[in-house]
């Protein structure tokens, strides 16, 4: 015999002003199965919860319905209260009479009537609820960080410091990422390498960190606490354990015409190379598309000269497979391609460059040894014009609809650095808006204007063209309502950034949700900003949204804190509202497994009695409750109705339908 208790909350006047809560409680009292109904000012308060607990004990309730605010708000509160009173927490249902009723209706009669129906619906459901117990799954005490830029490095260091093992998987030959390419960092103008490389070294030396460079995640199985990851270690044709980083091979390599990716293709490098001086690991890699040995079969000079015999042309990709408890995604960004922005003349003029290219041109380890020279003729530019928002905030389909966030600050930085180093250089900046929220950020931008005399022009550039050897930058000056054409020597495009394209594959492997701009989606924009909705997956850096270094580092540390919080647990509680097949009805047809995004469904051959003392073996579905997330896709796909969802069973939902529809 069901003994249901109903608790109607006033929520102060939030509910009580529109819904006659007393009448609701009175009406509900006569519902079959209801043995107790009460109303109270604040059910979620200590006293309100006490009321519930007391009623459960006194009236020996088998299920309760709370008519209150959204279950998204206090379902957990009331479940806890029920549990404390000895009732299974899943014997609680919430009737949302605030957000879905009192707040949207004005007429008391109407709202009260609806509240009664909503409570009845919840009663209908709770009568079919079954006690559920959360399962447990073990936690592998090791974390994986995908991406070895500053975000990945910071997250790995923090996790490692807490005593957990961490692997960094980096697709390039060295960790360091985009930050390693930068010259100076805002708003302090300290040297990027000076603050990054010590962290890279820390990673290499940390006993808990294993760096898998030149590697990519190939496959991910499992779930929070128990990810099973397959990692491809790409052949670098150099034995990592033997190479000492002496660079003799680089001196001898005859193939010197490869574009230097680290320097944004502004100069060349040898086929065998170490990406940059402070690379970690400091180990060479051979570009097999460029190497003569691979192209012609002849050469092998590096092999002859390598004193430790590290060169191995026969090396193949290998795979490692490891278990992880948590995964941090920190795949970073790249500037967008400028194919859709020919009006800025990037393709036709060598002296129209992107901001990241300028970083390399300004960097002491860059192609010009830090002397600002224009790429076309190696001359000093005397007029430098910056164009902001190239490809950002563009909803026409050519660029990206979002603000890339970092461009205003780095453009101010570039402008300042040029004026600092070359005071004879005129610097203009075309901007739409200058967006510099952040500690000491606007001050930084104002310094560029006030102290360094950078000419900020409000307006967008319409066309950049070459005339008599000069770059003519034609744009609007909206403040003066004029069209200006600035004769420039160098034009720098503050190019929009986009997530590193490989993040798509990573997202698919992790079933982490991703938006139309390829940014990974966080669980909650405000309250769970570093967690992916996929449990056990955390997001750091630009893969989640445009952000600068300070924000990236904060987010990485936040990820680390979340990961540590997960890894210190020995067991995880799992969501008990999972799918469950009725084996007696299951056809074993695999339709359910086909729609399961989590791979939670497997099939077993089981023996069943079929009457007359006979048995038969049938293929039946089996759901791993630790992996199932409880979406219910399988339940609808199942033709026989064998698959059902605990907590949202077909019977429960249909009883709700009935309660709403029956007049």
């Amino acid at each position, binding site marked *: 015999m069901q003994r249901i208790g109903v608790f109607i909350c006033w929520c102060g006047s939030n509910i009580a002003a529109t819904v006659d809560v007393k009448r609701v409680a009175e009406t509900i009292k006569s519902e079959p199965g209801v043995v107790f109904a009460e109303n109270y000012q604040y059910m979620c308060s200590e006293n309100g919860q006490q009321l519930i607990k007391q009623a459960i004990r006194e009236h020996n309730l088998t299920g309760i319905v709370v008519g209150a605010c*959204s*279950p*998204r708000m206090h379902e957990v509160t009331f479940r806890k209260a029920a549990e404390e009173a000895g009732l299974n927490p899943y014997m609680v249902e919430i009737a*949302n009479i*605030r*957000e*879905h*009723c009192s*707040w*949207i*209706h*004005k*007429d008391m009669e*109407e*709202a009260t*009537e*609806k509240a009664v*129906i*909503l409570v009845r*619906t919840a009663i209908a459901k709770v009568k079919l609820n079954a006690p559920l117990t959360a399962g447990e799954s073990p936690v592998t005490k090791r974390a994986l960080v995908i991406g070895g830029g500053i975000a990945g490095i910071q997250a790995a260091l923090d996790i490692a410091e807490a005593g957990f093992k961490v692997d960094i998987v980096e697709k390039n030959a060295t960790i360091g990422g985009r930050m390693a390419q930068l010259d100076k960092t805002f708003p302090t103008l300290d040297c990027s390498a000076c603050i990054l490389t010590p962290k890279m070294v820390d990673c290499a030396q940390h006993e808990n960190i294993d760096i898998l460079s030149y590697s990519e995640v190939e496959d991910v199985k499992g779930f929070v606490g128990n990810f099973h990851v397959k990692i491809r270690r790409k052949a670098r044709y150099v034995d990592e354990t033997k190479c000492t980083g002496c660079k003799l091979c680089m001196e001898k390599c005859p193939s010197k015409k490869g574009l230097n990716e680290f320097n944004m293709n502004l100069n060349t490098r040898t086929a065998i190379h170490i990406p940059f001086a402070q690379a970690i690991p400091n180990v060479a890699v051979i570009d097999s598309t460029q190497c003569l040995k691979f192209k012609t079969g002849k050469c092998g000079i590096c092999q002859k000269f390598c004193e430790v015999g590290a060169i191995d042309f026969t090396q193949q990709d290998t795979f490692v497979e490891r278990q992880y408890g948590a995964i941090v995604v920190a795949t970073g960004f790249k500037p967008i391609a400028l194919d859709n922005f020919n009006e800025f003349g990037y393709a036709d003029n060598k002296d129209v460059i992107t901001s990241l290219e300028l970083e390399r041109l300004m960097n002491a380890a860059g192609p010009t040894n830090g002397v600002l020279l224009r790429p076309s003729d190696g001359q000093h530019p005397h007029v430098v014009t910056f164009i902001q928002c190239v490809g950002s905030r563009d909803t026409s389909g050519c660029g990206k609809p979002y603000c890339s966030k970092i461009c205003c600050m780095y453009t101010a930085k570039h402008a300042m650095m040029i004026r600092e180093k070359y005071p004879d250089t005129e610097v203009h900046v075309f901007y739409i808006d200058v967006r510099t929220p952040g500690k000491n950020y606007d001050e930084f931008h104002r310094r560029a204007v006030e102290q360094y005399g950078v000419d900020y022009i409000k307006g967008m550039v319409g066309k950049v063209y070459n005339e008599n050897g000069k770059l003519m930058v034609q744009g609007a000056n909206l403040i003066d309502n004029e069209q200006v054409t600035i004769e420039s020597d160098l034009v720098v495009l503050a190019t929009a950034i986009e997530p590193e394209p490989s993040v798509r594959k990573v997202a698919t492997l992790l*079933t982490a*949700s*991703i*938006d*139309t701009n390829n940014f990974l*989606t966080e669980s909650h924009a405000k309250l769970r900003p570093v967690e992916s*909705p*996929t449990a056990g997956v955390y997001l750091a850096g630009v893969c989640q949204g445009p952000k600068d270094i300070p924000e990236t580092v904060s987010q990485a540390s936040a990820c680390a804190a979340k990961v540590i919080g997960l890894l210190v647990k020995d067991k995880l509680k799992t969501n008990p*509202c999972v799918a469950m097949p009725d084996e007696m009805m299951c056809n074993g047809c695999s339709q359910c497994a086909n*729609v399961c*995004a989590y791979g939670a469904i497997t099939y077993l051959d089981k023996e069943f009695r079929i009457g007359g003392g006979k048995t038969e073996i049938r293929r039946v579905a089996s759901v791993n409750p630790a992996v199932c*997330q*409880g*979406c*219910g*896709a399988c*339940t*609808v*796909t199942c033709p026989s109705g064998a698959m059902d*969802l605990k907590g*949202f069973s*077909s019977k429960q*939902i*249909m009883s*709700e*339908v*009935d309660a*709403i*529809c*029956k*007049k």
Partner: protein
Amino acid sequence: MQEVTENKEFTPNIVAFCCNWCSYAGADLAGSSRMTYPANVKIIRVPCSCRVNPTFILKAYQQGADGVIICGCHPGDCHYVTGNYYTRRRIALLFSMLNYMGIEKERTRLEWVSAAEGQKFSAVMNDFVKTITELGENKRLTDLRVKEGE
């Protein structure tokens, strides 16, 4: 006699299935933003729009619903990664079939409403209630078997 009852002001009974992560949250937002919509919309919370079995929809009509609306996360934003993609196919086929059988196609609707779209939720519900009110009581879906004159 029947004429008279039909002319009485008709308030439709509408069942809305909302996914927990987007549309139910969108409905909550509509509530906390005090965006009104008629009281004859009653919401059933499901984990994902892909939990909505066509049977539930038909059952609602059998029990006297005049309109059924299914709301889920926008395609690509599903909390369960791919759930609403399956919803989209199933519901597209179901809608087409109901239409094929001569059931008013306006009676059943699917909308993508995100957790941030409180305004959209309220607008959709207002519009849907209006549509169903104009359409009148659901008869065909409970009437298919009885022949004329019987």
